[in-house]
Each structure stands twice: as C-alpha cells, then as structure tokens.
C-alpha cells in the first residue's frame, strides 16, 4: 500500500513538473483580440499556437477574469502584450508568455490603439476626448497627453516621432498629426485624404489609408477614399492613389515590409494588395470577401485574415501564404479584430 501511494505520488510530481515553463505558458503563436458580443459583452484573447492548438480565451485562463467590453487594438513588444479595450476604457498590459496581467491603465474615455515608444512608454489614442495619451511603462499611469484633431486613430512610431491619423471619428477629418515623442508636443500636421484610419511604414515612406466618408443624410456629401504616401523625412505627400470604387471604405492597412495589404470595406470586405511601385490603386481584390480584420507577419510574410462572419458566431482566422495560398484556419472568438504573432 505504501509503495503504491509512493508511486502514485511520484507520478503526480513528475506529471505536474515542467521545468523552465511557467504556469499557463502560451508562447509561440498568433494572439487574436476579439471584440466580444455586441452591447454588454466582453472581449477575449484567443491563442493559436504554432502547434495548432487553440485556447479560446487565453486571458481568462491566465487571470480568471474578463478583459472588459469591446477589444479594439492589440500591440506587443518583446515581453509584453497590450490590449486596448475601447468599451472598458482601459489598456490591459500582460506579461508574455504567461499572459498574467501586469496591470490596467485607466482614465481614458474611448481608447482605440496603442503604440510602444522608444523609451518603453505606451502611447494611446482616444476618440472620446480627441487626445493622445502617454502611459508610463512602469506605473501604467497617464503621465502626459496632447490634444489631437478629430478622432485620433492609428499610431505609428518613427524615430522620435509619433504619427497620429486623425480619422474624423463620426465626422470628417483629413490630417495626420506628428508629435514629438519626448516632449509630447504637436510639431507638425500633414494634410492627407478623407478620414485617415490606418498607417504603415515601408522604408522612408509612410502610407496612410484614408477611408472616405459616407453622407447618410442623403445630402450628397460622400467623399472618396484614397491611399496617400508621405516622405517620412520631409513630411511631404509624394503620391496619392484615389480608390477605384466611389463607395469603397478601405481600412486596416498592413505591410510585410514589401507589399501593402488592406480591407476594402468596413464590415465584410475583400483583401486588397498593392505593390508600392504600382501606379494606380488596385482595381480587383486579392482575397475575396468576408474579412473584418487583417494582420501580416513581417517575418514570414504570411497574411492572417480575421473573419467575423455574421458578428454573432465565433469568428475565424485564415492564414494565407505570400502567394495567396490558404495554409490553415482556426476558430477565433466573437468578432476577431486584431492579431499579433509572438515568436
């Protein structure tokens, strides 16, 4: 009897002991932020490992609580993942790879996206107050802020500058604001197309995708979308590509460093692809329909398409190669909106 118990106890000890691996370690794979159920739901964080295992709500597994309402933006650096909760008005900071919450930054109205600055602090755009905040990396407290134009949306760090697209919120804007990342002062404004919603940098060029505007009052105030290229050094607009379809409302600009990708429309659009040497805005989609979010891995150049389906079911992530071949797919949460690959 004693021997049996000893053997059983040893087996348990060996089984439960995983040296050099913390509890709930999720490690290499794709992390997908899901907005969550409409109205009173909560966001979730799905982990799709490189071994094809899926953890539907990895944040809850690690922290035994929910993220909060309406996940909107996801960002990562080497050892942290940052999730922006627009409804819960907070920035959740998680340790990687165990996803244990380090803390929550609060004090926002309607935060949209985050960007890690050179010194490790986090910049956050906020529609509710038309402001950009700086959050301390150590205390997670708001330490600085600057007023931006209407609807500050996408953030891009370039050298010691922070570029902010002013998307217009529920109205119209057409500027990109440039902020000194050290002093957090507005230093320049670049006029672009209507309602710039996303940006990427390739080399010394910054591409700004402008979504256009639909006048739902029927007064004929529709404005076309466009893709704008800016020289990062001179801040001059060097190219302007008007969208082909007058009703196109492109969004989610991404890049693998060599090619540009975006979604043609707000809820269920096609994936568009454009070589930076192209002379015109692409006329035809690269991957057809049903796409809500987009992520491109700059290392592998794989394209991850986030399909929200009917916005009520669990969504789906589809992984495509650079050549457009479907490699694999996995189930995500309700309304997958953003993703990041962690090595």
């Amino acid at each position, binding site marked *: 009897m004693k021997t049996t118990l000893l053997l059983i106890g040893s087996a348990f000890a060996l089984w439960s002991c995983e040296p050099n691996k913390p509890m709930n370690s999720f490690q290499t794979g794709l992390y997908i932020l899901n907005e969550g*159920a409409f*109205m009173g739901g*909560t966001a979730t964080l799905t982990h799709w490992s490189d071994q094809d295992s899926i953890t539907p709500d990895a944040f809850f597994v690690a922290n035994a609580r929910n993220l*909060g*309402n309406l996940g909107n933006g996801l960002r990562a650096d080497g050892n942290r993942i940052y999730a922006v909760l627009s409804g*819960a008005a907070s920035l959740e900071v998680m340790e990687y790879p165990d996803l244990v919450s380090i803390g929550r930054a*609060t004090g926002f109205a309607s935060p949209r996206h985050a960007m890690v600055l050179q010194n490790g602090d986090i910049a956050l755009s906020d529609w509710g107050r038309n402001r950009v905040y700086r959050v301390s990396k150590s205390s997670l407290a708001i330490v600085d802020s600057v007023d931006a134009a209407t609807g500050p949306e996408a953030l891009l760090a370039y050298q010691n500058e922070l570029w902010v697209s002013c998307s217009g*919120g529920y109205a119209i804007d057409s500027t990109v604001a440039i902020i000194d990342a050290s002093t957090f002062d507005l230093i320049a404004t670049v006029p672009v197309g209507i309602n710039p919603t996303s940006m990427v940098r390739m080399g010394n060029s910054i591409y700004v995708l402008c979504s256009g505007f639909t006048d739902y009052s029927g007064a004929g105030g529709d404005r076309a979308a466009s893709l704008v290229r800016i020289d990062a050094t001179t801040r001059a607009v060097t190219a302007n590509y008007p969208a082909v379809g007058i009703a196109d*409302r492109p969004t989610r600009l991404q890049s693998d460093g060599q090619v540009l990708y975006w979604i043609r429309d707000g809820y269920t659009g096609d994936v568009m692809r454009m070589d930076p040497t192209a002379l015109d805005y692409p006329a035809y989609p690269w991957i057809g329909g049903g796409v809500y979010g987009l992520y491109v891995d700059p290392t592998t150049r794989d394209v991850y398409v986030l399909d929200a389906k009917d916005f009520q*079911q669990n969504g789906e992530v589809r992984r495509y190669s650079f050549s457009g071949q479907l490699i694999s797919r996995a189930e995500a949460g309700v309304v997958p909106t953003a993703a990041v690959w962690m090595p």
Partner: protein
Amino acid sequence: MNLCSQRGLKAAWLLAITLYGAPLGAQAAPWSDSLTSASLPEVSVLGGRWQTGAKPSVQLPSKPMGWSASALLRSGIDLRQTGPTGSAWISLDGLPSNHTWIQWEGMALSAADLGIMDLQLLPSAGLSMQRSADGLRLSSDSIGSLSLESSTLGNAGLNLWIPGKTADFGLSARRGLNRYRYNNYLGDSYWRTGAGTERLEFRSSLRSSIGQIKQSTHFYAVWLEQGLPESANVPRRLGAVQQDLRATVIQRQEWNSHRWEWSSMQHAVLANQTYDYPLFGGIQDSNRVQTLGIRIQSGYRRSGHSLRSSLDVDRLMAEGPNKSEASILRMQLMLRGEGIVAPMLRYSWGLSQLRQGDELGTLLPFAELQRKSLGQKASWNVKLHRHQRFPTLNDLFWSPGGNPELRPERGWESRAKASHRMGSLEAYAGILRDAIFWMPTGSVWMPRNVESLRRIGMNLNSTWQRGPWHCQIAAQWVYSINNSVMRMPFVAPFTLNIPLRYQHKKWEFEVFNRLRSATPTAWSTSRDTWIGPQFQLDASLRWKGQRSSVEFALTNATNQPIYLQLGYPLPGRQLSLTWHCPLTGIAQ
C-alpha cells in the same frame, strides 16, 4: 348556485363572458337566451390577430412600481430589460418581440417605428395584464383601489384607480432610484448608478349613450424619464438618459340589436422620445411617432352562428434625424365567422387581408375548433392560422441602412391545447418565412429577410390544492431556430416555475421558484453570447384585512446573479412593501 343545472351553466358562462369581455370594447353582446346549450366565451375580432379566449394561466396585477420582471418571467414570458423599472420588451412562444400583441381597449399598442412596445409605456393604473395563448391583454379592474409600494432599492410608487358608471380615472406615479450592489467584470463591487426612473401616468375613460348608440372615450398619457445604465463590462459611469412622452386616445361608438351589431373606433397616438448620452462629446437625439386610425366593424348573428367583418385603416408616421421619409398607410380587412356545431363544440374561421403602402399582403386564413365537456372539467382546442407582419418604419426608412426592398414576413402557426381541472397542456408549432432581422452588411447594419424561423413548443400547467395549500407547476419548452439552426435570441429554451401558497385566515404566504435555462442573446452557438442558467426564489407574505391588504415581498431571496441581457445585472435580494386598499362605495 348549482353549476350543474341549466340556469347555473348559463349564469357561469355569462359571468365568464363578463370577466373576459369587459375590457374589450368591440365585444358583441351576450347570446340569445333561446340557446338550449351553454354558450362558449366570445372570441373577439381584433385588428391583425385572433384571440382564442383561452383561460390565461397567470394573471399579473399591476403594482405601483409596474409589472415586475419576476412576475413576468414567472408567467413564462421572455423578457429583455437592462435595469429594474426600466424599458422592457417581451416575446412569446419563441417569436421576436415585434410579434407580441398587446391590447388595450381593443387596440394593439406598438410603436409605429420600432414595431414593439415598451412595457413601461403601457397604461398601468388600475389594470392587470393577462397572458393568453396569443398575446397579452390589459383588463380594467372593476373595483377602485389605491396602492402604495416601496422597496429597498429606493423605489416608491402610487396607483390610484377610480372606476365609475360613466367615467373612470386613474393616476400612477413612481420614482425608482434602483440602487443595488453589483460586481463588474473585474469583480469589484459597486452601487448601481444611472438606472433611476421617474414615471407619471394619467388615464381616463368617459362613457355615454346617444339613443341606442353607446359612446366611449379612453385616454392615457405617460411621461417616463429613465437612465440607461452602462454594462458591467465598462467603467462605472452614468449612461444615457431617455425621456418618453406618449399619449393615446381611443374613441368608440357601438350599436347592438338582437341580431345586428356595429361599432366604429377611432384612435390616435402621439409619442416623443429624446435621448442624451454624455460620451463622445455628447449625443442628443429625438424621435417622434404618430399614429391615426379608424376601425369599422359590423356583425350579424342568428341561431348560434355569427358573421363579422372589420376594416382597419391606419396612418403611421415617424420623424427623427435617422428617418428620411417615414409615413405609410396600412389597411386590413377581416371576415370572421363562429358558431356552435354541436353541444359544447364551437368553431371559428376567418380571412384577413393586409395592405401596407403599395404592397398587398397574403390572404390570411384562420380556423379553430373548441370543445368543452359537460361540467367544464375538460376541454380541448385546436387552431391553425396564417399571419403576416409588414416591415416597420425603422426597417424601411432608417438612415443609414433602412431597406425599402424588404418583403413582409409570412408565417403559419398551429396550436392544440387540452385542459382539465388539474391542468393544461398546450403544444404549438410555427414557421415564419422572410423573417426580418438587422445584421451588418458592407459598412452599415441593415435589416434583411432571412429564409425562415421555425419553432415548436409546449406549455404545461398543473395545479394542486389541498386545504390551505395550493401549488402550481408551469413549464415551458420552446425550440425556436433560424434556417442555420441558430436559436432565437432572448428566448429561453426552458423555464420552470413552481409557486407554492399557504393560506391561513387572513394571511397568505407564497414562495415562487423559478428556473430559467441558459439563453442566447444573439444568433450564435458561441457561449460568449449566452446568459447562463438562472434560478430565482421569491417569497411574499400577504395580510388581507377587511378594508386593505399589505404585502411583504422578498425578491431574489437567495441573492443570485440575474441577467436578462448580457452584461446588465439585475438587483440581488430586495424587499418591498405594498399597501392596497379597495375603494368600495364608488358607484359602478
């Protein structure tokens, strides 16, 4: 009175007719005394729906703080509500809320733009709500009363109802602070904020006659201000504030002879709603809805059979920043027959035709057979009907997203019910084609026709009484799915209610056990969109004196987390006190 005698039977049916038929202004006069067998209850001809006259399983008396979520849920009604005493929408038998038919004075109450009716905008003073097989009926209490209620949520209300021979008067006033503890998504406990409501209602009726023509006018007006609380998954903050002002007037003329009957009803509804949300720089919105209509009915009866016709013409109008052109004319023509084919066997049939704007609807047939056994110990009832619902003003004209190409919904429903002294069992099945639901399309949400909504369900009721003990079991099961086999949102697949009552002299003690299965809140199998199963236990202690009664009610006695909408917790344990005094001596 010996109910087994012929006169006793007639008297019993006349009493039943009076109880069921009193609030329905378009009711025909009781049948001729020349009938040799007992007559069955009258079945009214109503605009757009057919009422079985089935005995309701639960009566919901109105209270000063309105119809409580607990009482509604106990009667098997599916309910959506984000906070106590706030706006609430109900659905029946697996159908969406916009298929719920609520009648007041023979007129269907529903908002012309949304197509559904907020319970908080229903008249409540001096009325009770009765759930029947097809819908809900608000019926006037023939006894005047004064009621006061208060609760530990910081709520208080008053109901005054004075019915008279030629005039009725009702007043209802209440204020709800709705302060209760809840846990947010981080597990932090807070006092609920932004869920307060204030409501004022005035209701009046006038009756007169000009020769043989009876004239009546019914009016009610409601002012409601409510906070729309934020979900528990966002920071604790004040949400939006909504104000509603609604006035409804119905005027009716009736004429009855031995064989002929005629009535005309005119109605008008004026409603205004404002919305104010402080975030995003402030969002203010206002909407106005108006409805004008007329109904003309006529009927002929002879030898136990009757034939009726009805014509309804309504103009529906709405104005607001998101309604580009919202005005439409709706018409309905109905023909209905009923009678007795054999002792205790009654039939009903009907044809109805709807028209909205330029679109003519489908012919809608109806057939029903009903049989009661001698002594009224058992009965059965089967019904088959086709129904149709046109898109609402918001469906057609909302900007952005309104869809003028929408097709009207069309459906069939069949029902069968068997009743016995001990209880009843009802089964139903239905299919709804081209059901209208809003969904994201391109860059906006817009309503679209989905292929079908199929549903089957059963309602079981059983009562048991022995001495001072009375127990009831009410179970509902419904399977309501779309063509993708997704369950209908906000329809609980299964509910079980077991009220238990004990009476001793002037005291009455009652315990309500309610079990509600996990319920979807979207067309989704994702458990992130489902509300988990819920159990609730309520208890009440009533003392009935000669001149008044007092009730202590403990709701959610075990302090369970209760949700009717994802992310919006309802109160935990709460205590309320109600004092009710019938105002006897008022001339009836």
